[in-house]
């Protein structure tokens, strides 16, 4: 058992309706690591995130979380160590601040100061007490990100958290992800189509194609000297999908 590993996937496979969707032979994610998942739409990135979230069980194979094989269905206490920002986040009725505090309150933690500071840093401070419903798509996305960050989970799974955001807010979110890693050792797995973002933010970048993990390497090697020709083709934009 390696205490430094948060996730270890071995021969992990997920089928939907009998059709192969994802197959990961071997993947390890270290504590405090920022791992970017890239790949075309439908390559299995979101499926991998859902498996890492322990909300779905794999069709076969094993997934270890913090050194222990996951037993499904995973209990609340283990699930509460992980949180996720979904591609299309949904907010609840109530104020923006109520939404940001939701996950923390479920854990019996009241962190309004932290939540307000997060909202400020994401440019939403003036909306803290506003109702969550008339918000724009970008604002909803930022509220969902703040809601996940406010919980203080050791593992963050982010499914395209900066899609539809302007560069200033993209950088704001990236800054928080880095500070969470520096200050609290938070492990982050981020799905992104923004390759420059993967390069500047991640410790490692992993490419998924047709449900298979093609290559995972540190950004300089991944982008400048990829080991697999399919990675090169993907980066050049030659790949047709």
């Amino acid at each position: 058992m390696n205490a430094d590993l948060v996730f270890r996937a071995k021969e992990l496979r997920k089928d939907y309706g009998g059709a192969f969707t994802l197959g990961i032979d071997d993947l390890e994610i270290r504590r405090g690591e920022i791992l970017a998942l890239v790949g075309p739409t439908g390559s299995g990135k979101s499926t991998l995130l859902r498996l890492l979230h322990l909300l779905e069980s794999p069709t076969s194979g094993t997934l270890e979380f913090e050194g222990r094989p996951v037993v499904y269905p995973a209990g609340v206490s283990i699930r509460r160590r992980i949180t996720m920002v979904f591609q299309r986040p949904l907010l609840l009725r109530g104020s923006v601040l109520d939404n940001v505090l939701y996950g923390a309150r479920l854990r019996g933690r009241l962190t309004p100061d932290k939540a307000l500071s997060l909202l400020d840093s994401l440019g939403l401070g003036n909306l803290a007490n506003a109702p969550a419903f008339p918000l724009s798509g970008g604002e909803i996305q930022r509220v969902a990100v703040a809601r996940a960050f406010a919980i203080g989970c050791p593992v963050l799974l982010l499914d395209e958290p900066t899609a539809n955001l302007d560069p200033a807010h993209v950088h704001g979110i990236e800054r928080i992800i880095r500070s969470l890693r520096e200050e609290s050792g938070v492990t982050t797995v981020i799905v992104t189509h923004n390759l420059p973002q993967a390069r500047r933010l991640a410790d490692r970048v992993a490419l998924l194609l047709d449900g298979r993990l093609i290559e995972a390497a540190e950004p300089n090697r991944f982008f400048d000297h990829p080991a697999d020709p399919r990675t090169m083709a993907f980066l050049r934009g030659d790949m047709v999908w």
Partner: protein
Amino acid sequence: MIDPFWEVLRLTLQVTGLALGVAAVAGIPSGLILARSRFRGRGVVVAVIYTGMGLPPVVVGLVVYLLLSRSGILGPLAWLFTPRAMILAQIIIALPVVTGLTMAAAEAINPELSLQLRSLGANPAQEARAVLGEAQPGVLAALLAGFGAIISEVGAAMLVGGNIDGQTRVLSTAVVLETRRGNFGLALALGGALLTLAFIVNALLLRFQGSPRRLG
């Protein structure tokens, strides 16, 4: 006239309130469960509930009368011509309304909400509470519809309650009685009281519907 009026009003509130309370306790969770589960025969259950939403009160009254009559299977309870019989009949009228409309309200909620709530750390009870909160306007509408269906119904209340002065007389049956006696002024006044009562309850529930909610 003052004392009998207040007694009729008190009994109306008691019978309708208890019936609606039981219908809410049973109907809201049932509606939520039906909205979020898929099982064999669900379509039949839903069809039965929707049919129940249109049950004629007088037919409900007749069935409850037969069940509670001396030869009926519930005869030993000796509830016939008591407020309990009226409450039982009104529960049967209100329950499908509350269940069916709660189910419709919960079905309108994005099914991915549950997954996202679990992702935020909600246990099953917290998840159900949050989903109920999101369905709150629809659930309150279901309660209002259930209340409306029973506060003004006459058929069942008359059949199983008997409209006994001081015991089972409620506003709707009192209106019928005074109309038959030719006391149209009094019947209109009682009808006005019934409408006012319905208005007050609706206004209170609508006020609650519009109030902000604390999450978590």
